[in-house]
């Protein structure tokens, strides 16, 4: 004899998992939720976008204020200062140089020409020495000048004394100066 035991509760046996009404309600609710979510997202998205546009406008205004005429005097002043810094860095102090450099000439030597051009950075010194010995001493002395990078002896020739007895040895020497020697 076979006994059938029905394990399903009698109330659930008749109940369908989703009735037509509830399926429709669920579907409508789902669609409403989706569209509400979409609407909310669009609303916030637009709201952020509007706010962004306003902030962007404020940024443009602030930038225009910064770059405009309001502060142009300040920028001009600052640029002028930066340029003056560079100009003053190239400022040469010749009186101090002459005072220092003149110590490196022995009394038996006097100059007739002295020239300097910043393009070459070379000092061309022409003068008259009492004799060749004094000239060689002078060249040695010039080499010991701390502002000189190199001293080049160009030429020399004996000069006969004139009416006022200013004979001697004419010479031409070039001195390459350090970049810093003329500056403070």
């Amino acid at each position, binding site marked *: 004899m076979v006994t059938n035991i029905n394990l399903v509760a009698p109330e659930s046996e008749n109940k369908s998992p989703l009735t*037509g009404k509830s*399926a429709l309600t*669920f*579907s409508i609710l*789902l*669609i409403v939720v*989706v*569209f509400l979510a*979409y609407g909310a*997202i669009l609303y*916030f*998205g637009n709201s*952020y976008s509007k706010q*962004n546009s306003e*902030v*962007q406008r*404020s*940024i443009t205004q*602030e930038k225009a204020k*910064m*770059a405009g*005429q*309001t*502060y*142009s*005097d*300040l*920028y*001009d*002043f*600052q*640029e*002028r*200062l*930066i*340029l*003056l*810094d560079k*100009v*003053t860095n190239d*400022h*040469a102090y*010749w*009186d101090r140089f*002459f*005072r220092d450099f*003149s*110590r490196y*000439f022995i009394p038996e030597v*006097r*100059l*007739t*020409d*002295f020239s*300097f051009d*910043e393009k070459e950075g070379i000092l061309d010194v022409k*003068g008259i020495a009492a004799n060749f010995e004094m000239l060689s001493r002078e060249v040695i002395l010039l080499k010991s000048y701390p502002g000189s990078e190199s001293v080049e002896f160009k030429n020399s020739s004996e000069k006969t004394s*004139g*009416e*006022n007895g200013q004979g001697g040895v004419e010479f031409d020497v070039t001195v390459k100066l350090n970049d810093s020697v003329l500056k403070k």
Partner: protein
Amino acid sequence: MVNKITGIKVLIVPVTVGISLLVSILFVKPAFDDMQTQRKKRSEIEKQLTDLEGQNKKLSELKAKWDSMADDKSLVEGALPNDASMDSYIYELNERASRSGILINSVSAKEKTSGLEDYFCGKEKGAIVSSANSSSDDESSGNGAGSGSKAVGGIQPSSSCVKGYSLDLVVTGNWEQIVNFFKYLEDTNRMANISSIAIKSNPSGQPGESNDLLSTTIGLSVFYRAKSEVSNSSIISSLASGEGFEENVIKKLNNIVFSPYVAPSISESGERNIFK
């Protein structure tokens, strides 16, 4: 009929879920991403706006400070004027020549078209090709990035350069006067740099004749810079960041222009007239 209703009942939920998914994927998700992007962007640009407002505040404080710097402004404008103003510089030179006792024989000025200085508009070797160079004085060399000038190799914008004049000055005086004049040239109100010097003894040119007078030719570079209406971005950002003015330069200028005058003491401590 019953079957049809059952079919709809069976299909309506999956169809709705499917449509919802499709809508979510096609519309909701992109809209959400867009919203997130806008939201992120808002926080970024709000920060940017706050920074800009802060920078403008700093600039406005700096402007208030600048308005009270009358002495410094005139010092700087005197040192690097807006225009060539060679007449006023020559007047200043003449005054200093009188003070040192030398005689000015000749003065000649010509506009400098090239220079060794890296801050000069039209530097010789290199960097800057500026359309402003070939034009008239009213063109500002500081017209910024939009001035039609270009930096070759990206070295230096044309806004950061000066224009200038080469001035050749021939003066006569004795050694003390000449050295004295050089001292006076160093602290003129207007910044000028000596570019060349040539000193000759015996300017009378009579062979054998000896006198104390020296003929001196001095080459000077005198600078000016037209007022710029538009500045370059680096200047704006440096000032806006609150760095302030280059006050060390003002101090340096004060030291140069207002340095106490000490007359050269010739031949007192080993120095001598090297032309004698």
